[in-house]
């Protein structure tokens, strides 16, 4: 790399062009190296910021998920303590130690009452169990569970609710169906609570190995920007929960407003895994 030549002469012979050119080139090279270093540092800082934001968002979703779980447990504990507990305590009173000392008719009456209370408790526990895992979903899949859910809403008479599955030939994995069902429940619940709409309609179809579920309603709805803004707030637990559930199944959600028909649409985009493909 070094080129030493045999001729020698004084340094004073260096021409200004050569001197300025060389100094200029060295300055340019140094500036380039410094630019690369600072540019990379800036990019890395920016990446770090994005990572921190992502991590903060994940924490927020996790907190929302934990809070929801705690609320669910509290509700379950309250149901068991306030409903099942007193019922079983009453049944126990009917079946106390004195029962053997009572006359036959009273004994029969007490046993009948206790049996009635125990039946009531069984129904109560079944209801609690069904709220945790709907039997229709477990036995017949998402399509039946969603149709059943919409049918119940419609039967209440307060809103016109309908659902139509066009192309649900292969079921998703049970855990995925449960997550999706919970998301749909939360979405419909939000619509019932906040939208003041007169109808809800759900449609399903498949596009390129993706399950698409779309809910239309004619009330007040959200746009995607509003949804993203709400999920960043400390409240908006339900929306955060929807987001964290969808993240588990790698799904996406899109809120949009159809201005031409004064409708709001919510679209769920769920990719199918290889072992759940419909084709």
């Amino acid at each position, binding site marked *: *790399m*070094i*080129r*030493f*030549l*045999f*001729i*020698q*002469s004084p*340094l004073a*012979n*260096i*021409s200004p*062009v*050569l001197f300025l*050119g*060389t100094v*200029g*080139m*060295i300055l*340019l*090279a*140094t500036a*380039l*190296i410094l630019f*690369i*270093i600072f*540019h*990379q*540092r800036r*990019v*890395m800082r920016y*990446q770090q910021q994005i990572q921190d934001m992502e991590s903060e968002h994940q924490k927020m979703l996790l907190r929302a998920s934990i809070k929801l779980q705690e609320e669910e447990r509290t509700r379950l504990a309250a149901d068991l303590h306030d409903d099942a507990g007193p019922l079983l305590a009453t049944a126990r009173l009917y079946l106390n130690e004195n029962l053997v000392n009572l006359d036959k008719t009273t004994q029969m009456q007490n046993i009948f009452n206790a049996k009635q209370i125990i039946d009531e408790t069984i129904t109560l526990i079944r209801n609690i169990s069904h709220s945790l895992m709907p039997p229709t979903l477990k036995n017949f899949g998402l399509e039946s569970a969603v149709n059943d859910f919409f049918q119940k809403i419609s039967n209440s008479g307060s809103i016109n609710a309908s659902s139509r599955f066009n192309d649900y030939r292969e079921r998703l994995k049970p855990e995925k169906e449960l997550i999706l069902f919970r998301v749909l429940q939360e979405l419909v619940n939000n619509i019932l609570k906040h939208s003041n709409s007169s109808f809800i309609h759900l449609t399903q179809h498949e596009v390129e190995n993706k399950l698409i579920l779309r809910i239309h309603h004619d009330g007040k709805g959200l746009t995607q920007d509003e949804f993203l803004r709400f999920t960043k707030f400390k409240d908006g637990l339900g929306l955060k929960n929807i987001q964290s559930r969808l993240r588990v199944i790698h799904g996406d959600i899109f809120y949009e407003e159809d201005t031409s028909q004064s409708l709001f649409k919510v679209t769920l985009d769920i990719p199918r895994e290889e072992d759940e493909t419909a084709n």
Partner: protein
Amino acid sequence: MKEIIQYISIYSTFLPILVFFVFQFNRKQKLKWVIFLLLVLSVLVDVLSLKMANSGRNNIWLVSIFTLIEFSVLSFFFSHLIKRKRTQKVILLVLFLFSIFWIIQNFFIGSINKYDYLSQTIEFLFLLLYCLLYFFEKSKITENIFIYNTYQFWLISAILIYCAGTFFSFFTPINTSDKNTDVVIFEYISRFGSIIKNILITIAFCINPDKLLKNQPNKNSMYYIKDLKV
């Protein structure tokens, strides 16, 4: 003073060679080996050409041959360092064309015993271009490691500073008739450039990529650095 600079520049070449022997961490780092072998060769050429110059013999043919070898080795170096396939092919094509040009220039148009400024200008022009391409490529990739923690960065910086520092000196001899004076100007610039280059290469050889490898993230991560071991 002149002799001091001359000897510092020659002995400064031994610094990276020595450091390479002491801190040679990973024998799989073939790019470090390429630069190391080039340094050894340049020392041999320097010592030989200095002896020839002192004894009044023409050493220009040695320098001319070294130019071709140097460009070939550095082209190999850059073709491994720059990841874009098309650029790699272009680098090899440029090397092929340069070799043809060098043969024509030294054996048909001119003589190998006359200093070939044109070949050296073209060589350094392409080396500068390759350095820019490398930095351009690096500026587009996101990594979780500071660029100055990689030995490749210091090697490229060494080449860039050396080429930038000596590049302009090639123009003067071509445009003037007084070759003797201008050739000597080149000598000083070349020696200073050489000292800086050797310091930067020494820094590159001091960097241990094994430590960086330990801190590498998962292979699937966007921050995984594929060419850390090269």
